[in-house]
């Protein structure tokens, strides 16, 4: 094949799509290769909640930056992407969680994100379907929701209009020293290769620490107006933080179609994608504790997906020390839809050797090696 791209991107999930979009906009010649189609792996399984999150200072910086990029892009997104700026409502069950609401409000405010504290009454007004009593909540109005596979398709369509070439149904066997070998025998030579293979990234770049973290979701029939914000329990933080144990948390999303998407569950060390009825049951019961009327709504489908998780819950974005032709953009765990656009920007900044809007060091893959040597 005579086509010689500057950059080959392996993976047409949301992360690979965002990289393709940002690179094509900067006039790089780009090839995007995916073994399946656009957004058919983890991106197809995700919830599509775009949110600012404060598990760590670094996570906050990345999510805030990326959310600002999404919100700037919002007016261009076609209806199929189902972008809706519904905001997040963090629900506090008791006074302890209410204290967390206040802390979060201050933390976000100090970093330029406006939020609003709701007392029990205001919470009831905002979301009448929630059970009573509840202590209150925190509204984050800038958060949004979209439909990830169509968002990935939109980004790649824009990239293609700018000259990117997209190869679907083509598996990559290996990437090394600027050479990408496809299973069908095609070979690409390029200056850089971006590994955006999500949970499969370690197969192409052995040695990176990404583990699949299984999740379950349930989608209902259409019940428009049941809720208007993405609802999350503050206990979510407790469960999402536990690295090893299985956990469930109340996480309910209103889709533009009127459907409700019910999450969430996290499991490590489960390799098969089968529905696990024990954890599904826990997840649904948790959701029904918060929104009792959910029980009588019709569930259409249940599915599972694997989040690409790293040990420190931050993605790998940057050059791979063992092979300078390889740039990693993988390991976005449960926030990859949100942080995809920022990832694309950081990749472009690196290639253009220009300064980034946020410090890039926390996401560099070299931290993994340092972590090992320091240990």
């Amino acid at each position, binding site marked *: 094949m005579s086509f010689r791209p500057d950059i080959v991107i392996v993976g047409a999930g949301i992360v690979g799509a965002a990289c393709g979009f940002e690179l094509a906009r900067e006039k790089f010649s780009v090839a995007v290769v995916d073994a399946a189609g656009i957004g058919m792996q983890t991106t197809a399984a995700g919830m599509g909640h775009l949110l600012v999150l404060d598990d760590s200072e670094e996570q906050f910086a990345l999510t805030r930056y990326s959310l600002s990029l999404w919100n700037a892009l919002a007016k261009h997104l076609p209806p199929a992407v189902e972008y809706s700026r519904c905001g997040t409502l963090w629900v506090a069950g008791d006074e302890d969680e209410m204290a967390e609401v206040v802390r979060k409000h201050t933390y976000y405010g100090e970093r330029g994100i406006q939020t609003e504290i709701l007392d029990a009454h205001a919470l009831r007004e905002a979301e009448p379907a929630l059970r009573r009593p509840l202590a209150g909540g925190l509204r984050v109005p800038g958060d949004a929701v979209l439909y990830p596979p169509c968002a990935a*398709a939109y980004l790649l369509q824009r990239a293609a209009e700018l000259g990117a070439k997209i190869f679907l149904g083509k598996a990559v066997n290996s990437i090394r020293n600027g050479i990408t070998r496809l299973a069908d025998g095609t070979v690409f030579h390029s200056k850089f290769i971006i590994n955006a293979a999500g949970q499969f990234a370690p197969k192409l770049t052995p040695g990176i620490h990404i583990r699949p973290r299984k999740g379950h979701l349930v989608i209902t029939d259409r019940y428009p107006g049941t809720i208007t914000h993405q609802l999350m329990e503050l206990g979510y933080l407790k469960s999402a933080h536990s690295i090893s144990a299985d956990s469930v948390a109340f996480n309910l999303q209103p889709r533009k179609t009127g459907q409700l998407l019910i999450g969430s569950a996290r499991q490590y060390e489960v390799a098969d994608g089968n529905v696990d009825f024990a954890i*599904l049951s826990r997840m649904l019961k948790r959701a029904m504790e918060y929104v009792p009327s959910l029980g009588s*709504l019709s569930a259409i489908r*249940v599915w599972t997906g694997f989040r690409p998780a790293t040990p420190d819950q931050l993605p790998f974005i940057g050059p791979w020390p063992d092979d300078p032709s390889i740039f990693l953009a993988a390991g976005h765990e449960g926030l990859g839809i949100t942080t995809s656009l920022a990832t694309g920007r950081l990749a472009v900044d690196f290639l253009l050797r220009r300064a980034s809007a946020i410090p890039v060091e926390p996401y560099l893959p070299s931290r993994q090696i340092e972590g090992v040597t320091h240990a």
Partner: protein
Amino acid sequence: MNAESKRSFDVAVIGGGPAGMGAATVAAECGLSVVLLDDNPGLGGQIWRGESGSSKHTQASHWFDRVGRSSVEWILEARVFQVGKGHLSAESPDTVHQIAYSHLILATGARERFLPFPGWTLPNVLGAGALHSLIKSGLPVEGKRIVIAGTGPLLLAVAAYAREKGAQVACIAEQTTGAKFACFGLSVLLVPEELEEVWQLAWQLQAVPHWKNCWPVAALGKERLEAVRLSHHGRIREIASDYLACGFHLVPSLELAQFIGCAIQDGYVAVDENQQTCIPGVYCAGEPTGIGGFELALVEGQIAGFAAANRKDLARKLWRRRDAGLRHVRALRRAFELRDELRNMPQEDTLVCRCEDVPFGLLRAHQSWQSAKLHSRCGMGPCQGRVCGAAAEFLFGWSNSSVRPPLFPVRCSSLAEMPVETIPEIHEGGSK
């Protein structure tokens, strides 16, 4: 929230059509405890639905009577939404039934295939089977003009019934060729049990134009159907009509069998001579093993029931009748094979998925059902792709072998109350 009932049976039969009634009855007569589940308010399946012991159909009244006298326990309006090893869950309007079983008989029947063409979503354009049931439950059709289009013997049955109720059947538009249809007619004449029925049909329909090589090009009308445009031997005809009843033969309901990992061969559940699937103790009878009509369904059901009761001697006595029926299956398949031109019926803006309003043009860009589904939402609605999936399979050659839970939409509370032991053995073909 949900009342729950937990029971245990030797045999669970899913589907209360002829196959399921036959299977359940003989298994119970052999002394087994049997539960028969169906999601309709009455037994009988597609063909005998809404009838009872007083049916004028002799076979129907025989089986309604026999199942009534047996020890079969039937549970109606119960939809089986989850099946695992030795365990199944079914939802009724106010209960979840948790049933433990030793033998499972799948008799889930078939449904009509719809193919999209411009105007097919207009009011008064219906499935042939749907019109049949509507008339049965009281829709007045006296003096109404009806066009019946599609393919398969069902069209004749529906036409005869509509005429009997006073409708004026303007024509039957059959897509297959005259030669293929004639071959089929001959093959039917070789089955003595069908002869009487065939003569009756022919008699009732002698005044109705029966066009071969004919299919709908468009359903026309503003608020509702006013006329049907047909392609007939390459010419376009327009026929004023109050109703258009369409059906492109039947597609077997395989979801349940696929879900638990039964092998599928040539589009049907693969079974041995005793109707046992590749999973020991799991049997399948009726339309899912081959579209062959209610007589065959009854025979297959009885074979499965006897086999489950370990009365292979009695099962064996029915093999010959079943094998004759299977010849009929092949004859049907050949005669009513869909012609390629039908793939040109939809236009760019013709909806293929009615639940999610997905037009033909949007689907064509995709390589697979999975990709089309993900990006266009085709098949993501409450029918779970049961209607558009069969259409897409014909139009684009896409197959969909991955069936995810729940098998039917169910209340969230029913899913939440699933016993943990019912973890199914899912054999998913896909990448996930």
